[in-house]
């Protein structure tokens, strides 16, 4: 039985539908992420799981029991808030002890569990401090310890890394993964940062305008986006309009106007005559001198329109003969070498037949 089942949940605010008929199933032990732009309904969904908000229709089942009528304090679900929401008038130890006290645990047990939780987040020396005496990362860890100490069935995390700077965020990502593995508690993580979602999750639900667009493992979300929104929102991708000429289980033959034929892998539900998009990730695109011998079926000429050097890689934006732009990513594997091609250079771009994805418009 699934740990959490969200069945056909809808939530409206006036005429605005924040969550629109969402169905999601989360298994015990999963690190599950709700990913989407702001206003996509991910936080509203999280608040309904926690019990701060109620669905207008649909069911939320925890361990098979509908919890919609259960107040937040009676749900075995704890939340790590975006602002951490540490109680400013309590010490670190008292903050962490709070859920244990509310659960009516005996004092010796509370003491032992608080110490254990403090050890778990490496904050034993800070037990007597007040929240305003901590750094952002330390507050974050106290909030995590407080959310985990009473071993909830489910830990909800509402953009918990949003307030941290980039370097600390990366450290905390690794810490989060390890912590989740260690405690084995199911995490439901909400974020708008696609790289965070890809790095942390076992599975991701990509949300847009109140609906779930795709639920999959990170590599599937990134590699096989099901529609234009997911392709565009997660990672970088180049897209061109295309029409299906031939569809077989193993491959699709597409016509891109002004460019010619493009071959991609086969996809169910696609038939000849369909209109849509062909999408290619920048790191799948090879770039070579225009005069080099073509080695791949998808091989097109163009010229360098612009490039962007960011240290480890350089992204070249190539203008193709039909006026479309395609991005190609080149690792700067030789030291001091930042630029293999210059703006205006005649180049060729190519990609394997299984690199392109056909998306319905």
């Amino acid at each position, binding site marked *: 039985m699934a740990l959490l089942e969200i069945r056909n949940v809808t939530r409206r605010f006036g005429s605005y539908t924040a969550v629109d008929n969402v169905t999601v199933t989360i298994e015990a032990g999963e690190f599950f992420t709700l990913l989407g732009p702001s206003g996509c309904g991910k936080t509203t969904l999280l608040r309904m799981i*926690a*019990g*701060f908000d109620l669905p207008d229709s649909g069911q939320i089942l925890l361990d098979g029991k509908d919890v919609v009528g259960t*107040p*937040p*304090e009676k749900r075995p*679900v*704890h*939340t790590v*808030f*975006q*602002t*951490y*929401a*540490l*109680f*400013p*008038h309590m010490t670190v130890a008292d903050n962490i002890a*709070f*859920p244990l006290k*509310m*659960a009516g645990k005996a004092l010796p047990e509370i003491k032992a569990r608080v110490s254990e939780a403090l050890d778990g987040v490496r904050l034993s020396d800070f037990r007597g401090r*007040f*929240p*305003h005496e901590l750094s*952002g990362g330390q*507050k974050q860890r106290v909030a995590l310890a*407080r*959310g985990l100490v*009473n071993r909830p069935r489910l830990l909800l995390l509402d953009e918990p890394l949003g*307030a941290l700077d980039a370097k600390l965020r990366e450290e905390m990502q690794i810490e989060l993964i390890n912590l989740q593995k260690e405690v084995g508690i199911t995490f439901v993580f909400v974020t708008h940062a696609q790289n965070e979602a890809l790095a942390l999750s076992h599975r991701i639900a990509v949300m847009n305008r109140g609906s779930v667009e795709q639920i999959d493992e990170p590599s599937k979300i990134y590699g096989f986006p099901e529609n234009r929104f997911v392709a565009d929102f997660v990672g970088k991708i180049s897209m061109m309009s295309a029409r299906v000429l031939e569809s077989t289980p193993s491959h699709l033959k597409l016509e891109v106007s002004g460019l010619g034929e493009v071959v991609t892998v086969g996809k169910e539900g696609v038939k000849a005559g369909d209109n849509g998009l062909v999408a290619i990730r920048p790191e799948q695109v090879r770039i070579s001198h225009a005069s080099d011998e073509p080695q791949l079926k998808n091989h097109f000429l163009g010229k360098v329109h612009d490039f962007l050097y960011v240290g480890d890689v350089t992204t070249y934006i190539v203008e193709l003969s039909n006026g479309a732009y395609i991005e190609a990513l080149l690792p700067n594997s030789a030291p001091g070498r930042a630029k293999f091609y210059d703006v205006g250079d005649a180049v060729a771009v190519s990609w394997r037949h299984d690199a392109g994805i056909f998306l319905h418009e």
Partner: protein
Amino acid sequence: MKRNNTWLWSAAALVYAFLYIPLAIVVVYSFNDSRLNAEWVGFTLSWYKALFNNAEMLTAAGNSLIIALSASFSATVLGTMAGLAIHRYNLKVLPVLVFTPVAMPEILLGVSLLLFFLQVLNLTLGMVSIIIAHTTFCIGFVAIIVRARLQDMDESLFEAARDLGASPWQTFRLVTLPLIMPAVVAGALMSFTLSIDDFVITFFTKGVGEPILPIQIYTMIKVAVTPEVNAISTLLMLLTLVMIIIAAKLDAHASSRDAKTSS
């Protein structure tokens, strides 16, 4: 720029002089060894001694203290509840109704309370009517202060308490109340200072019985401004000042602590 600063400082100095010179004169003359408020003769504490031997003055002060304590207590309880309700339910009309007495002319409030006590409640005017009247105009101040504090606070603190297993009542007792406590205390102190020196509303609602401090002072002044009046005014001023400073400190301290917590 320099010139502007000079102007600004002069203006500020003028304002402060305007506000505090009359008060300073009262304080200075309360220690003056002369019956007349005309020239400085020498330092004495005899007016304070005389004050503490004036039975009627002491009764008046005692009555005022009882009124101020009772009124500030009930206004604090009711005002805190009003502030919480206004914030919690995001009310639109009630806040206006609660805050209006703060801005309403006192004489209007005095007259209407008098009519209300006599004609609606059939109450004999005395300590009780004064306490009710003072509570009425203090509630608004407490509600404003408490609500302002709540508005400054991160709403997720209260959600976090519920989320971590606290019932609504536990959330109030363990999280909400401790966090708004500085505002509650500030509201109580504010109410106390407003009540203890209120003249107009007290005058309308006191009836003929007990002497009340501000009115007692007024009665004494009608005969002549004696140094005794200066002495009691100085004491009153001191009390008020201490209360206001405590109230301001409490609120500022708590605000800075909480601002740092959620960043």
